[in-house]
């Protein structure tokens, strides 16, 4: 694909350009906050550049980074992605502490709505013009902004009562009355006062335990839906700052805990990009194998749970049996079934065991009949089709505006797969297809996931065939612990070992954004390092966060029972959504 035309970008940025912070192959420009809105609109609407996806909107508190006398404490980061060309661009807008305000861009990309709320929650940066700038991850009685460098990590704050969300309900009513007024409908006919308000709350099986939706029902039809998230906000980004780069790996496993291996790989790949570490080929192939195994496991759970929510229990047992077979292999390989921490910065914790390839191949053959049986049961089943075809349909333009990636976006017809697009870890040498749907409804999402299981099986088999021998960890001992035998002989491995253990992996100062195709889409990591061995800022770009934002628009004016079908097909994993 052709390279990004930086001259054109500079032309659009114009006078608001402050500095060029491109590094590690990324393009990043610091721009003046006053010009942010103009620049972003221009970049989005430009016919050549076409930055139509806001991949991430986040912020960083740079108060502990050099230079000491900086005037602007915060920096808001806009990660843009040009879907059709594959170009990435990062814009950074420094924001002073005295007046932390920026114009909101929620009307340019719908993805910005919740992202800006999160920046407000974590940093206290205001976005002028945002319709609902409230806390999104921390609870409503929280005082302070946790990701600021002066907030003590361990200072917890109690919450006495849940937020009633009546204020958001009032806002929705006002918006509805306005729409009715504009379309000329009779206001007395709206029936707003007679609707039943039902809280489908955080401990409900349909919402997978940690999502809350306040719905307003008119009979069985949902007229208004107010979501609330943050019921599993465990402070991943703050916890990541407390230890070394390798200490983050267990936290990263617990992001999308259903496919933990994929998150491990995604995280260490990002750190290796920042540090400039090259891992051996064998390591890359093994990482591909475990990522694809994790993808199969996740799709089994997602589809199994989704079909159970529709009422068909048998498929759940079948798919879980398949998952148990994969668990056996994963447990033998990593030592734990679910939340593995298999990778390390610069390699893996240990190599494959003897006989892994044969066992893996045999296991893949065993799970194929489970999956094909389930597909046969549901593919042409009248009841299943009535409950999923046309339910929760979303157009690809809306999906792109919300920042969707992964199987949910592919089900709308957009063939975006970072494995094919970026071709990291030898994915461009594997022969596999990317299943793409048509209508973007629940049926397509479920079928895309089933088809991806088979494609992942193909990838694993090819990777097992091509698996080379050799070392599995990098020999750059500045970053990776040297083998123990060498420590007792030479001084340099001993020094490296000492530095890594005492002060953390010495990732040099810098920043980068790296992405990886996990089960739900693009898992991105925006890392800032200050060179001191601990992450200075670790931002996770969670695919579920951007996918879930579209949920309420999908369930409004639908039936109550369709809530379950739609939510299951989006594969919202709260560990990733709330971090």
């Amino acid at each position, binding site marked *: 694909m052709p390279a990004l035309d930086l001259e054109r970008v500079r032309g659009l940025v114009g006078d608001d350009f402050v500095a060029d912070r491109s590094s590690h192959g990324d393009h990043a420009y610091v721009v003046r906050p006053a010009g942010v809105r103009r620049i972003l609109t221009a970049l989005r609407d430009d016919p050549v550049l076409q930055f139509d996806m806001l991949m991430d909107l986040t912020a960083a508190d740079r108060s502990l980074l050099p230079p000491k006398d900086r005037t602007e404490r915060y920096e808001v980061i806009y990660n843009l992605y040009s879907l059709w060309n594959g170009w990435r661009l990062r814009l950074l807008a420094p924001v002073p502490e005295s007046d932390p305000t920026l114009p909101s861009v929620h009307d340019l990309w719908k993805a910005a709505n919740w992202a800006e709320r999160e920046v407000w929650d974590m940093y206290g940066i205001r976005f002028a013009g945002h319709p609902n700038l409230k806390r999104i*991850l*921390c*609870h409503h009685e929280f005082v302070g902004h*946790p990701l600021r460098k002066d*907030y*003590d*990590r*361990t*200072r*917890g*704050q*109690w*919450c*006495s*009562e*849940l937020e009633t969300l009546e204020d958001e309900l009032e806002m929705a009513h006002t918006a509805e009355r306005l729409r009715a007024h504009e379309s000329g409908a009779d206001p007395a006919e709206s029936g707003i006062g007679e609707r039943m308000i039902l809280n489908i*709350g*955080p*401990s*409900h*099986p349909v919402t997978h*335990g*940690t999502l809350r939706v306040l719905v307003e029902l008119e009979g069985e039809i949902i007229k208004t839906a107010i979501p609330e998230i*943050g*019921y*599993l*906000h*465990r*402070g991943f980004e*703050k*916890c990541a700052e407390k230890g070394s780069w390798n200490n983050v790996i*267990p*936290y990263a496993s*617990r992001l999308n*805990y*259903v496919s*933990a291996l994929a998150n491990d790989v995604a995280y260490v790949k990002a750190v290796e990009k920042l540090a400039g570490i090259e891992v051996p080929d064998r390591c890359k192939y093994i990482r591909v194998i475990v990522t694809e195994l994790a993808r199969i496991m996740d799709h089994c*759970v997602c589809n199994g749970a989704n079909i159970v929510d529709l009422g068909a229990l048998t498929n759940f*047992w079948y798919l*879980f*049996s398949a*998952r*148990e077979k994969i*668990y056996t292999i994963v447990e033998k390989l990593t030592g734990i*079934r*679910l*939340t593995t921490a298999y990778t390390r910065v610069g390699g893996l914790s240990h190599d494959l065991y003897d006989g892994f390839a044969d066992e893996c191949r045999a296991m893949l053959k065993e799970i194929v009949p489970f999956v094909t049986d389930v597909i046969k049961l549901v593919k042409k089943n009248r009841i299943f089709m009535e409950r999923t075809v046309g339910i929760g349909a979303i157009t690809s333009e809306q999906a792109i505006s919300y920042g969707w990636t992964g199987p949910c976006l592919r089900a709308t017809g957009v063939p975006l797969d970072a494995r094919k697009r970026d071709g990291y870890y030898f994915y461009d040498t594997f022969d596999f297809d990317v299943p793409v749907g048509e209508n973007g409804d629940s049926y397509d999402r479920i079928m895309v996931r089933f088809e991806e299981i088979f494609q992942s099986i193909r990838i694993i088999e090819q990777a097992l065939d091509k698996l080379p021998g050799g070392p599995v960890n990098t020999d750059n001992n500045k970053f990776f612990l040297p083998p123990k035998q060498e420590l007792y002989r030479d001084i340099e491995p001993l020094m490296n070992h000492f530095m890594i253990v005492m002060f953390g992996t010495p990732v040099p100062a810098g920043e980068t954004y790296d992405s990886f195709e996990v089960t739900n889409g693009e898992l991105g990591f925006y890392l800032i390092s200050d060179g001191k061995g601990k992450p200075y800022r670790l931002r996770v770009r969670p695919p579920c966060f951007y996918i879930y934002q579209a949920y309420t628009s999908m369930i409004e004016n639908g039936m109550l029972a369709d809530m379950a079908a739609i939510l299951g097909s989006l594969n919202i994993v*709260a*560990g990733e959504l709330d971090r």
Partner: protein
Amino acid sequence: MTRPAGGDGAPFLTTKLEGAIDWARKNSLFPIPFGTACCAIEFMGVVGPSFDISRFGAEVVRFSPRQADLMIVAGTIVYKMAPVLRKVYAQMADPKWVISMGVCASSGGFYDDYCTLQGIDQIIPVDIYVPGCPPTPDLFLDGLLKLQQKIDLDRRLRLA
């Protein structure tokens, strides 16, 4: 655990009746899985066919606290979720027991930060703590068996 002495003069009929009631209660626990995170996925594995929880009579998972007597808190509870946990626990009918599954529920796990409740026993009474991150299904079933032993021995929930 060995059964402590019944005390001198304990009437035969009531101890046998209590024994029968305990037997009925412990072998027909209705769990309400208050699952939030990774441990909930392992709990799904426990309910699945490989590690059948149905052998111990506890396969009827009910998501309403009115219909359940065993609350399994599986996953990290954050301060935002704490009022919900407290309320759902209060809404369960007596007699009720709580298993805290996983280290996050037992003590906050390795999330010692501004948003995670450092152990659910700060807000509700816990009967059995099952460690692990996540605990393997076998370990959880061990916890369940210990709960069954505890139900036998616990004199708290005697006849009304």
